[in-house]
């Protein structure tokens, strides 16, 4: 069954489907109940599944992740919403010292199927703490998986795959793309079996090209595709990484070996952003294929600026093309 859905609605539909399929799936977070979340991603779930399964938590993020761990130990599959990127920090201890490490600590006797949903990224004219891209903190932390969806179809399937995964998954949602629409094949194409869908760990070449590979994820995939469209001089291949930890290097290396050039795009700051690791890996494994050093098009190494400046801070079509030019001209 195919329907046209926004990315936000696709997430909602995916959550709905996961909750229907497995009574152990819970949704929890601030305002996720009657309000349906500040972005309405959990809209209607409270009405349908009730307050026992859709939990409006106290205003305490460490408590959200900490109690989710306890619920997971009791056999539940909690899906936690962190309201905005900038508000995950109070839960850093529970996420990094407990959630990420508990399975190893237990010698494999416990599993922690906890999903942490984080609307992230800028471009929505918001006040401080509402526009950040903190994926590095998670991708650097062993024991977590980190993914990000870029379109409604992936949103629908990947959230279900994340919930089905027995490891903790940090699920980054590109909030500025919540309202973008596309056709989503919610059943037949893929069958209802999650395992027949592209695994959430796989990257995807979303546009083929020959001159330069542009790797992006989340909100920047669309920007990369726009740049590819706009570039009349070069043929750009766009790779949607989808999974940030682990990264599907097979797909990425194959593309870079074809094009010889790579531009990585993300909103997070340059220093130790995903681009750093990707540049290091690609250089290591494609050294003799690279015609130029990996170019990074990223946010700057400053706190996220006030929103009137964010258009300058965030990579846009021009910045991506500038990166492409640098890769080609090197």
């Amino acid at each position, binding site marked *: 069954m195919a329907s046209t859905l926004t990315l936000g609605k696709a997430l909602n539909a995916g959550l709905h489907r996961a909750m229907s399929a497995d009574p152990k799936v819970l949704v929890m977070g601030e305002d996720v*109940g009657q*309000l349906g979340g*500040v972005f309405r991603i959990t809209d209607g779930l409270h009405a349908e599944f009730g307050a026992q399964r859709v939990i409006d938590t106290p205003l305490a993020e460490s408590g959200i992740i900490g109690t989710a761990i306890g619920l997971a130990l009791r056999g539940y599959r909690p899906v936690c919403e962190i309201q905005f990127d900038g*508000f995950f920090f109070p839960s850093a201890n529970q996420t990094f010292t407990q959630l990420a490490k508990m399975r190893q600590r237990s010698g494999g006797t416990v599993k922690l199927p906890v999903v942490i949903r984080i609307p992230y990224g800028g471009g929505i004219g918001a*006040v401080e703490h509402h526009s950040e891209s903190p994926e590095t903190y998670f991708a650097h932390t062993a024991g977590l998986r980190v993914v990000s969806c870029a379109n409604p179809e992936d949103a629908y399937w990947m959230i279900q795959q994340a919930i089905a995964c027995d490891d903790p998954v940090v699920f980054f949602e590109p909030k500025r793309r919540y309202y973008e629409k596309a056709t989503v094949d919610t059943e037949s194409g893929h069958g209802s079996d999650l395992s027949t869908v592209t695994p959430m760990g796989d990257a995807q070449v979303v546009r083929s090209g020959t001159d330069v590979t542009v790797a992006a994820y989340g909100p920047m995939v669309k920007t990369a595709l726009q740049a590819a469209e706009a570039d009349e001089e070069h043929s750009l291949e766009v790779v949607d990484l989808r999974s940030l930890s682990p990264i599907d290097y097979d797909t990425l290396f194959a593309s870079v070996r074809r094009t010889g050039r790579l531009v990585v795009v993300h909103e997070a700051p340059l220093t130790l952003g995903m681009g750093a690791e990707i540049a290091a890996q690609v250089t290591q494994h494609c050294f003799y294929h690279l015609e130029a050093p990996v170019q990074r098009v990223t946010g700057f*190494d400053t706190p996220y600026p*006030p929103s009137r400046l964010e258009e300058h801070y965030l990579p846009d079509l021009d910045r991506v093309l*500038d990166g492409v030019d640098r890769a080609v001209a090197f």
Partner: protein
Amino acid sequence: MSSNQSRDARTTTRRRASGTRSRTSTRQSGTGAAPEEQPELVQLLSENGEFHEHPEYPLDLDSEQLRALYRDLVLVRRIDSEAVLLQRTGELGLWASLLGQEAAQVGSARALHSQDMVFPSYREHGVAWCRGVEPRQLLEMWRGVSNGGWDPAKYGLHLYTIVIGSQALHATGYAMGVQRDGAIGPDGSAVIAYFGDGATSQGDTNEAFVYAAVNNAPVVFFCQNNQWAISEPMERQSRVPLYQRAAGFGFPGVRIDGNDVLASLAVTRRALQEAREGNGPRLIEAFTYRLGAHTTNDDPKRYRPSEEEEKWRQRDPIARLRTYLTQAGIADEAFLTGVDTEAEELGERLRADCRGLPDPEPTQIFAEAYAEPHRHLERQRAEFVDYLASFEGAEGER
């Protein structure tokens, strides 16, 4: 408190109800619902505008001071409503309205001395007004031209803090600094931290209680319990009244009628003075109501009945004071109209000021991340300048 008292109508009526706090018994069981019975709260001005003295919280204001409070309330509400409009017309990205909380804010802020320090959340426009911040400066972060807006030291008002609960610890640390400066005593400095009912659930707020108590720090925790944290009612944060939290950490807590500007002033004044004189922290829970949406992005219809709002609209903090002032002959029509006119002018000026707030220069991104030179950021800034320059004279080329 003041000198010229001859023509003043003094606040002398006897108090009607006991204003001392008392506990409702802790519910030993239940499902986390609200306590059936609300505890008593300190009230000096009843809902219908009658003044009652309170034995623990004497208040001795002259007419001028009372009128000044009224003016504050009206002007602060006007700033707020103008800002809501400015958001609607796209001049602001967002605004968090204080509608309904004017009395809690103005009363407590007018209890402050100039050497005191305030750590607000993001809704304390009334407090900011009392500290002398230009309303225009308040708009900066909501318009997105800066992440702050004023020099905290200049106004004795720290910047708005968005991450819930964080400022409670800053206030406590600042108060520990006051102790180390030896600024304790009748003319010492006190510190006040503002936060909401939701914020009481955060670890940071509770850690602030711990640090303040063991250090006996001169800090007053002022919790505006407006009964909602976005869509979540009080009962999702606590099943007992919030002021009771304090006793378990070893300092006094008190609940006040947050829509009573006089109670807010009197109780905060005493708490600050206790703090100043070395008697340690206090928690004040101002029981009030957020009459508007959480922010201009929010739609309260999704989670609360409009009757509830209506009920609280009847308890308007400004109307209450106006009734008292008029009935006691402290304010006449001319005064009231004068304040309204002033409010209109303030609103208009604010509108113009807002539009006049300049967008920052792009390189401002790099300006204040560090206090000392930063080799890496300087290079990044230079590259950015080059990048911008590459478009110059090339508009529309790409």
